[in-house]
């Protein structure tokens, strides 16, 4: 089977979610990549080096710069003429493009796979991760989005892919990019951070997030996350949210501070290797999933912890 993998990049680096998607694709067959955007020469070059990669299709055109699905989907559909499966990481872009590709191909998509089971079957979470479905597709072509935390990342080095230019230019029929407000941070990105320190509603305000959570995160070189309650209360921006409706993370260590552990939050972090919970309520559900728990006042514990590390 020939697979085509969407390369998620920010014109400089290839995102980790792509590497996990390459691993998923390699379980199905031959792995080809598609890199789109203007000035993506370096990204395409880096893509050829990913372990196990064959052809790297490059659509070098400014029309693809902001990954508008109206332009990108038809270009992918054309490439699917000689591929059997399209896989995209389940990122905001992947989720935006893949169903559009699937509908144009008249096939049903399989969303957010956790594993490849062979013989056209996959596992995927349903009901906010409260159940895991094994599903099997009988479609002529597969369209799949991949939950990055379910797969090891393919090595960035060791491959010897070849670059092939995609001919023709696309058109973003009826859609245009206006602008973006992407938060800049020195800290590691949540979906690829090895350690995450997350705060909940118990932090009480935005100021406490800066003075309590951030120093601990910086000491550990960790990413900063938050529960939906903390985001809804306006303590931190939306993109901090870990949970079923926010980011799905699986770091080596997840430190939950003042987070009770609502189902929707657990769905976003329960695949973390080690979970540490700090909460004053000893009956908080977070302790039922935590490997290490400490009951007490976070305003005393966290600064003390930061000081002693």
């Amino acid at each position, binding site marked *: 089977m020939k697979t085509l993998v969407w390369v998620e990049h920010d014109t400089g680096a290839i995102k980790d979610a792509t590497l996990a998607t390459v691993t998923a694709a390699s379980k199905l067959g031959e792995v080809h990549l598609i890199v789109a955007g203007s000035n993506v020469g370096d990204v395409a070059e880096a893509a050829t080096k990913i372990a196990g990669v064959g052809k790297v299709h490059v659509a070098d055109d400014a029309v693809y710069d*902001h990954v508008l699905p109206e332009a990108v989907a038809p270009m992918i559909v054309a490439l699917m003429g000689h591929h059997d499966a399209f896989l995209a990481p389940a990122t*905001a872009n992947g*989720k*935006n493009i893949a169903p559009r590709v699937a*509908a144009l191909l008249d096939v049903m998509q399989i969303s957010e796979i956790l594993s490849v089971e062979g013989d056209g079957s996959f596992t995927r979470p349903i009901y906010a991760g409260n159940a895991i*479905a094994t599903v099997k*597709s009988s479609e002529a072509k597969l369209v799949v989005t991949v939950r990055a935390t379910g797969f090891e990342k393919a090595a960035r080095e060791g491959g010897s892919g070849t670059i092939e230019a995609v001919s023709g230019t696309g058109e973003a029929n009826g859609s245009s990019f206006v602008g973006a407000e992407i938060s800049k941070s020195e800290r590691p990105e949540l979906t690829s951070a090895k350690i995450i320190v997350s705060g909940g509603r118990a932090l009480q305000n935005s100021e406490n997030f800066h003075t309590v959570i951030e120093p601990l995160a910086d000491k550990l070189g960790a990413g900063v996350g938050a529960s939906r309650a903390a985001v809804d209360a306006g303590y931190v921006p939306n993109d901090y949210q870990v949970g079923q409706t926010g980011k799905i993370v699986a770091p080596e260590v997840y430190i939950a501070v003042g987070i009770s552990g609502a189902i929707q939050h657990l769905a976003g972090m329960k695949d973390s290797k080690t979970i540490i919970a700090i909460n004053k309520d000893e009956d908080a559900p977070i302790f039922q999933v935590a490997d*290490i728990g400490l009951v007490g006042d976070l305003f005393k514990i966290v600064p003390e912890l930061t000081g002693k590390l």
Partner: protein
Amino acid sequence: MKVLVPVKRVIDYNVKPRVKMDGTGVDLANVKMSMNPFDEIAVEEAIRLREKGVATEVIVVSIGPAKAQETCRTALAMGADRAILVTTDDTVEPLAVAKILKAIADEEQPGLVILGKQAIDDDSNQTGQMLAALMGRPQGTFASKVEVDGDSVTVTREVDGGLETVKLAMPAIVTTDLRLNEPRYASLPNIMKAKSKPLANKTPADYGVDTTPRIETVKVAEPPKRTAGIKVADVDELVAKLKSMGVAA
């Protein structure tokens, strides 16, 4: 301008889903069902557009069992003008849903179709994008802000790392994210009034759509369970643990 809003009847978001013993799915017998929360946000947004004088009519569509009529009535009680109920007892996959919606959009000619970004049962996150593809129209997914200006709509989207804004020529497809608005509760007089609002009964066959599933669910299982670990007494003990894990020097 008409606004079309599809609504799905799903397990209530406060109910913890239980996997059936025989592994065929999630037990929905005697479980509270409600409108998918993202769809409620879509209904609210459409009603606000009508209240602002931007939209003239809000039409809701539900595809599902006969009981999905309740979901239609809920949307009508919130303020939608009329409903279309497409009845089927089969599981209808997003692609088939998109095909039915496309046929309805061809008849109704809405300027906007506003959908929830995903349903909280199958968590597919596909229908809006698929509908946009089938209609050959632009899409603004995961919206946190929607502003109509003449014949275009500006949509602010929640993306990885922040927000992105796109401008779409209408007719356009918008899917809602959590923070677009806070849906209103239906008042008792409006619940009474909703009972007499028009509701058209249809079937997938009326739109010529084959709803035979393309994806087979082989089994449904409980996720692997984490078990509670240990509790440490104080910060010193936690620091020692972190050091032994190699997290801190």
